[in-house]
């Protein structure tokens, strides 16, 4: 099982954080372009998913698979979006992403008044904790 990369996107789709653990193939896009396309994909996908739902306007998509990778998605009620790409054999990790948000993002970013919530995060404490959190997950170790 492989963890590829993680995106954190802000309320209005601005990129807050990006980290990769193993990325074999680059998308040949600039960081900025790739983030924008990711936001667009998530925006359209969640909107359409809500439209297709049995009770329209509710329901969020949690992940999608391609033959090569799996994208896990979690969004906070305040609109912060976490996106984790892994290999396809990883179990759904919706809960891990919410734990990551509640125990690491809130503690080190939201509660730190020196880290703005609309600009890319530049906090080594956050990066260290995030890295440790991902590395202790069973799907990272196997």
């Amino acid at each position, binding site marked *: 099982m492989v963890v590829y990369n993680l995106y954190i996107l802000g*309320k*209005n*789709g*601005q990129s807050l954080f990006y980290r990769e653990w193993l990325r074999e193939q680059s998308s040949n896009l600039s960081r900025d372009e790739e983030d924008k396309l990711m*936001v667009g994909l998530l925006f359209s996908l969640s909107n359409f998913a809500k439209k297709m739902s049995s009770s329209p306007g509710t329901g969020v998509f949690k992940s999608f698979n391609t033959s090569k990778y799996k994208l896990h998605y979690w969004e906070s009620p*305040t*609109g912060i979006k976490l996106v984790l790409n892994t290999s396809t054999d990883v179990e759904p990790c919706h809960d891990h992403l919410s734990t990551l948000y509640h125990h690491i993002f*809130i503690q080190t970013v939201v509660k730190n008044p020196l880290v703005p919530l609309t600009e890319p995060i530049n906090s080594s404490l956050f990066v260290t904790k995030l890295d440790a959190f991902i590395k202790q997950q069973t799907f990272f170790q196997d």
Partner: protein
Amino acid sequence: MARQGRSGETKMEGELLALTYGAVVARVLKDYERTDEVNAQLDKMGYNIGVRIIDDFLAKNRHGRCKNMQETAEAIQSAFKQYINVQPQVGKWNDAQNSFSLTLDTNPLTSFVELPAELSRLYYCQLFCGIIRGALEMVQLETKVQIVADNLKGSNVTEIRISFVKKLVDALPVGED
């Protein structure tokens, strides 16, 4: 003094909070001449607290999305209980059920405060309004929040009026297309 509560969280004495907030208001009054500007500044400070505190509140309570303003009112009520340990009354709903009042019998921020006559237009607790407005804005609710009765101005209670304005929709960033 800060001390560890039973839940392992850091607690703060109410008096320390009241005095600290008093010092902040006094400083803002020195920095801005007009009372209107002071109110606006306190509101802005509250707003900046609100946009962050909401995440903490949601993380601690794992609250689902509120379906109507009644649920929102209950959530705000429990937030007051949680953060400053007072239980406001929710009431005075309008006919459309989208505007209500929070009434605080005791206001921990004003324990040691007496407003001089020349500051009769100061909303001492405008910070609350900003916090509520900021927090609700982060969960896609635009609201108008104001103090309609103030225990520093002869009223028995502090009354905060919260009116729903509109539901915000997530916008895509202004991009290429």
